[in-house]
């Protein structure tokens, strides 16, 4: 059973995504702040990190860059955001994440992407 860490400041979004992902059989942990993210990383070995971009404490792509550069995190990281897709493409390029998933096309589209990502060798597409 794959394990997914969700990072987003919207409690409602996290709840919706958690319910949907757990219904697919994934084990899910949520973090709404950077402190919670730190704690979750210690307690929850995950196969995929889904990271919101526009958060009050920091941009998700900056956080991802820090996870890769400072903490040596190798887990696949995908930005999960409602930003324009051109913007997300740019953020993916420089932040060393593995890709992005748009929130704008409904939870079914998110689930389909997650299935593809986790089915691919080493979580890459």
């Amino acid at each position, binding site marked *: 059973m794959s394990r997914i860490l969700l990072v987003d400041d919207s409690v409602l*979004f996290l*709840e*919706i995504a958690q319910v949907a992902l757990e219904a697919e059989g994934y084990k899910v942990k949520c973090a709404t702040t950077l402190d919670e993210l730190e704690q979750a990383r210690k307690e929850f070995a995950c196969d995929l990190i889904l990271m919101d971009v526009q958060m009050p404490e920091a941009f998700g792509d900056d956080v991802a860059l820090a996870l890769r550069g400072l903490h040596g995190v190798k887990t696949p990281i995908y930005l999960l955001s*409602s930003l324009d897709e051109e913007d997300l493409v740019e953020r993916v390029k420089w932040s060393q994440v593995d890709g992005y998933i748009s929130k*704008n096309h*409904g*939870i*079914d589209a998110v689930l389909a992407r997650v299935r593809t990502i986790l089915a691919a060798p080493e979580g890459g597409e």
Partner: protein
Amino acid sequence: VIAGLNERFQARFVETARGRIRSAPDGVASSSPDGIASAAGQLHSLAGEAGVLGYAGIVEVARRCEKSLRDLHGSPAAATGCARLLRDLLRAVEALAAGPTAATQGRAASDRKDAIVKRGRILIIDDSPINTEALSDVLEDAGFETRCTHDGEAALVEVGRFEPDIVLADVQMPGLPLEALCQRLRQAAGARAIRILLVSGVGESELADLAAAAGADGFVPKDHGLEAVVTRVAEATLELMR
């Protein structure tokens, strides 16, 4: 999956979205970069929540609203555009909340209210165009005729021209103190009876004290939602007709 999630989360989404939209004018009114960024952040979160539930129309308006907030730069024209988008966003959320059955019931209730209030005239005074647009929109939808002004002096002129039945005045405006504003509004109305209601997001007891001290006829707390404002205005209109 999405159908089940919509059923389970729609009410929470609507309640959260209303809160996020209502908080936006305060962020804009603060005129600080942090306040505007926070308001834009609220709308961004709303877009994400709407997106995952498949409410594409709400996502589109919320994202346009968010962008217009980030591009405000203190421009009054931009603020008015932003106010319209916020109003459209609230409408879209309320349409979702209403659904087809509730929309029919709401229209019937609105028709009855129209018959009772006989399209009373409401003058709205608030220095924030976002607030006046939102109030005006909901009151017009309920059958009232409205006019908006953004300071006390302009309101005094409009009392003569527009001949309102009810004046809704925000309590935190630069210029005339509240007591003087109430006195001069009544003088400007002359022999016509008007009801002056103070509107604010301050606590209810504080607002009651402010209304009593200023010589207003009543008050309407903002934190009970715009529908509560409509109800209070309808009651005040009826009081005038008795």
